[in-house]
């Protein structure tokens, strides 16, 4: 039984950051932005949280700073796409580069070295009342509610319909008085907050450390979860948890098999699962033709 609990704790710990960032991807996707900047915004969130704790000594202050910076980065992405007319995918990849490089630079500038930064404490824990899950952060407990909230917002409100209309058929949105550009601004800014939480959970949910490039492709994995889950909040959240399950299973297998399987192969399992997942979701939606559309939302 403890074995099972340990397994669940490991999945939740590695999966929760993915789920938050995936939700950011879902809301952007529905508003019509293929958000490839998730990785960048997430690492800004992670870095800002750790630096915030170190510099202010307060977690609420640190998470507020992280949210602020992530929203600012997301608004920057919006500005580049909507106002400067950049290709959203290129702009998103650019933001990812900016996030990874910028956070390394910030650490270097503040601490004078590129070594990892450790914070004295992290996200508040659930505590002893939760038994074997007590060491998890409050963000893990919040996660299902956030997913449910996203589902209500996107699938059961007029707001969600308008957001989807803005993404799928901008003229339809304009015809009912919704500005597609504003809808995307709202979606990206909300996504900034979610990425901040995801980044904070990654850096300060278990260990409390920030290292260069510590997101290591998790933002892209989240994007894959968005596609795998057809931009549906619940489906995408499960896709994200599935990817982290594969990752945790890989580490377990490593313990089991020791050196007989090269450890790089096991470490690459979640990434392979991601590719497999996107391929399967493409097949499920009708082969190569539909796969290029990647979800029911059209890239207009």
């Amino acid at each position, binding site marked *: 039984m403890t074995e099972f609990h340990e397994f669940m704790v490991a999945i939740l710990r590695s999966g929760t950051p993915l789920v938050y960032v995936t939700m950011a991807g879902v809301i952007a996707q529905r508003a019509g932005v293929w958000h490839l900047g998730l990785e960048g915004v997430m690492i800004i969130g992670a870095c800002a949280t750790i630096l915030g704790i170190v510099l202010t000594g307060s977690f609420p202050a640190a998470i507020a700073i992280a949210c602020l910076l992530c929203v600012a980065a997301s608004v920057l992405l919006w500005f580049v796409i909507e106002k400067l007319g950049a290709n959203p995918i290129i702009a998103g990849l650019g933001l990812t580069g900016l996030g990874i490089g910028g956070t390394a630079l910030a650490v270097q500038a503040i601490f004078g070295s590129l070594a990892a930064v450790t914070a004295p404490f992290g996200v508040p824990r659930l505590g002893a009342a939760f038994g074997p899950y007590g060491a998890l952060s409050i963000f893990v407990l919040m996660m299902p509610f956030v997913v449910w909230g996203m589902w*209500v*917002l996107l699938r*059961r*409100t*007029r*707001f969600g*319909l*308008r957001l*989807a*209309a803005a993404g*799928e*058929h901008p*003229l*339809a949105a*304009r*015809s*009912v*008085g919704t500005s597609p550009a504003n809808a995307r601004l709202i979606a990206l800014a909300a996504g900034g907050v979610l990425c901040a939480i995801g980044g904070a959970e990654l850096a300060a949910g278990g260990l409390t450390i920030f290292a260069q490039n510590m997101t290591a492709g998790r933002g892209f994995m989240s994007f894959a979860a968005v596609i795998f889950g057809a931009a549906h909040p619940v489906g995408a959240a499960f896709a994200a948890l599935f990817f982290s399950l594969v990752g945790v299973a890989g580490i377990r297998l490593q313990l089991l098999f020791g050196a007989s399987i090269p450890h790089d192969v096991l470490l690459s399992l979640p990434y392979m699962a991601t590719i497999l997942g996107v391929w399967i979701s493409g097949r499920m939606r*009708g082969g190569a*033709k*539909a796969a290029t559309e990647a979800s*029911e*939302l*059209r890239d207009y």
Partner: protein
Amino acid sequence: MTAADPPALHCRGIRVTYGEVTALADLDIAFARGAIHAVVGQNGAGKTTFARVAAGLVRPDAGSLAIDGRALRLGRVAGARAAGVELVHQSFALPPSFTVAEALEFGAGGGIGVYSRRRLLKRCRERLAALDLDVDPRRRIRDLPVEVQQGVEIARALVTDARLLILDEPTAVLPPAGIEALFERIRSLKRHGVTVILILHKIREVMAVADTISVLRGGRLVAGPIPRERADEASVAEMIVGQAAVGPVSADDTQALVGAAPVRGVATHRVPVAASPEAGETVLQLADVNTAKDPEEPPLDRVSLLVRPGEVVGVAGVQGNSQRTLVKAIAGLADVTGGDIYLNGRRASRTSAANRRALGLRVIPFERNSEGLSLTSALWENWSVRELLQQPLFSFVDPAALRRRCDEALETWGVRYASATQNAGALSGGNAQKVILAREIDDDARLIIAAQPARGLDIGATAFVWSALREAAGRGCGVLLISSDLDELFDVSHRLVVMLSGRIVAEFVPPYDIAAVGRAMTGAST
């Protein structure tokens, strides 16, 4: 209306310019409440721009709008909707992945608007019932036939209790029976006190439904609103075209364009669909052609078709009945799973698209701007594709010579352009189509497939395209003309087949019976 009643919509001095093009030039017009008003004009007359200004989608450079005597903030959809103005677009504005219920809901009211599925469906069923629209609210927009999509969009527009409904070319996508049903719906809206403005371009339709007629030409109001009783088809046709423009256009073409002609003949001759292969020389023969399943359109189902030299064969049908698949199959771009295709007498079912071209096949594709031309490439590049296709892969290209020959060709075809090095995207629709004609119609052409060749063109360019096709046929080319405009088909084709869900269901020869063709298009039993 009494003199004291303010008009439902009053435009004063509306001017809209797009770059150097003036779409509306100081338009002054007022529409009375509680009537059906038609706004007619050629393409480019400013009809759609007028509709979009009234709905707040386009902000005019100058002028003012008043609804029921109250001034409206310009360029604000929310403001126009609050005043009761709704627009139904020509190519509908409903997200294809939405269900009918979602499509009705997304435009309703403000705020976050949380709903439950059950309540949403109930509300939707009530609204649909009120409009006498029979459709399952759980179906997705993309799965609905166009008439139903249009009905849903009208329902969407009425969700907010619109009092002024503008429909932009609502009949363009409908089969004849659908048009009558739409007009009935519009008359019923009028009875419920809704003012309706119909943007149309066929006089026959205007006369059938409108109370008043207004004519736009070149972004100005030429006449109107004229009560229908005081308008006659001929004079309205003349106002639409403008006397100066009538010159090069034959009277017959003018009639077809405005649709003013009475039904041409009533006798029909139904002939067997497939002719025997021995019946003389053919440039195109399809024998029981099937294609693979395709998410966009039904596959071709045992399609047999003959085109002889010098013959224009029309393909009629409501959009989406596999006309695109037919063109792709002949061009070598579709997955043909059965049957045979003969080009110029040679079996070509397995021949590549490039080699079919060598057999004399030329295609004027459906989408001028995405399939016909590369808008971001120079004119000479667009034009010389046809030669480069015939040359070995690593042959020498002489751009200067190609540019020279392109210049010659474009001048022969009367294309108005600045330089062969300008991008194709800078041309107007008519000129762009002429570039495609100049490229496709050459001495080696044996079969020309013309897919909606006159769509979106003004009267002069349309007449030009038609005469080019007739001329090619006169030189012995076969022409396959695919169109959803019956007037165009009746005017140009020697013979007409009707497509419905991937099959050829009927064949007609002149004189055409519009009612019978319409029945065949919708699958109604004859």
